[in-house]
């Protein structure tokens, strides 16, 4: 090893420069979406501990806003509970009303929600990831959806024992299956790669009339997100080079810059559904 260093030192710094640069660029290129977090996973536990510490400090500065939001959510849940009691006889539950099974469903419902805290969150990179303080010991698995009080957040991409990392919606690799609230038409939502507030809806058939302010919800077909979770509202219509489809810019309902409390969505029938999709 020492001889190699001596050789490099005597020969040329350019050689070392090229070797180190090639090494780094190979690493960058190899960091593909799902494999990307492999290497980071090793340090996940360690960095998770440290980030948790700093985010605990940060949390104190946001206590008041957070309390307000929690009490608002509480109130909303209470209301929903009341509503659910009323309509219980007609077997419609608030979550997962797309599929109605027997009444015993209340015991093991279609989706359950695991609360988690954001301990690291990036929004200004090209590929944005979020780190959460729940891991495999809490039952988190890869591909579970993550939502906040206001809308969708992302999909779990990697899990270690105590922490999990989430591919944020603000990532070129994320495509969310969406549905217009008014006419139930399907479309795909992506990030516009520029600004954490805006996304792009693609593949809207051009015969559909879209207006500013139209609401987009999740379709629930991917199995990661429950149906009818808010995604955002149409901000303006974009020019498209394809005549058959139109595109539109949307404003995400989730505010990614102030993300603190989120819920990880566990689909209790995910395995069963996936086994059907294969055949």
């Amino acid at each position, binding site marked *: 090893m020492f001889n190699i*260093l001596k050789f*490099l*030192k005597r020969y040329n*710094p350019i050689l*070392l*420069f090229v070797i*180190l*640069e090639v*090494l*780094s*660029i*190979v*690493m*960058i290129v*190899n*960091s593909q979406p799902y494999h*990307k*977090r492999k*290497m*980071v996973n090793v*340090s996940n536990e360690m*960095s998770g501990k*440290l980030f948790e510490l*700093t985010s605990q400090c*940060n949390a104190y500065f946001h206590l008041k806003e957070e309390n307000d939001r929690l009490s608002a959510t509480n109130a909303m849940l209470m209301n929903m509970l009341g509503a659910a009691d009323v309509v219980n006889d007609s077997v419609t539950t608030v979550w997962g009303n797309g599929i109605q099974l027997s009444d015993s469903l209340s015991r093991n419902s279609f989706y359950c929600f695991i609360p988690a805290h954001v301990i690291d969150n*990036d*929004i*200004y*990179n*090209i*590929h944005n*990831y979020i780190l959460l303080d729940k891991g495999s010991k809490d039952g988190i698995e890869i591909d579970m959806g993550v939502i906040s009080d206001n809308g969708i957040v992302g999909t779990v991409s990697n899990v270690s024992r105590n922490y999990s*990392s989430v591919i944020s919606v603000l990532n070129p690799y994320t495509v969310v299956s969406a549905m217009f609230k008014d006419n139930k038409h399907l479309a795909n939502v992506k990030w516009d790669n*520029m*600004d954490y507030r805006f996304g792009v809806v693609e593949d809207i058939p051009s015969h559909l009339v879209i207006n500013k302010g139209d609401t987009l919800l999740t379709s629930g077909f991917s199995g990661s997100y429950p149906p009818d979770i808010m995604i955002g509202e149409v901000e303006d219509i974009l020019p498209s080079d394809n005549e058959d489809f139109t595109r539109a810019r949307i404003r995400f309902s989730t505010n990614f810059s102030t993300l603190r409390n989120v819920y990880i969505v566990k689909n209790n029938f995910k395995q069963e559904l996936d086994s059907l999709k294969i055949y």
Partner: protein
Amino acid sequence: MYNKFFADIMRFMALILFQLFIVDNIRLGYYIHPVVYILFILLMPYNAQRWQVMLAAFGMGMIIDLFSGTPGLNAAAAVATSYVRHFVIVIMTRKSDLEEKYNPSLVEMGFTWFFTYSSILLCVYNLVYFMLEAFSFKLLNIILLQTLFSTLSSVALILLIMLLFIPKSNLTLNK
């Protein structure tokens, strides 16, 4: 001499912690991404070999990468900076300074010199960083804006840090 070496090691760790837990949380917008840890590379002594500087830059970049989940990105930018550093120093510094002075710091070299020196190197760092992050030339105008604003903010932060840590005996900067 021993003291200065010890100070270098302390600076290494302090700058990494400062970058990860304080500076990385300062995001004033899409274009501003200040970087401070590279100050360690800027301040390496004149008598350090070029391969030492480059390996230090690579190691430091990898540590930052490990924590921010971007394998290779910071390392590539830091190595490029450390490579250019040699030429900037050779062009900007007199031979006598190279032998007499310990490292290219604010106290040793004066304000104007250090400002130019750090601006050039941070410009290199940020340009490489943002080009590799975008990994295409489609976003060139964004890359250039990001480079400009990030360089300005980083230089400001670095000058602040240097001013904070001036030894009391050196409070007059006119050298």
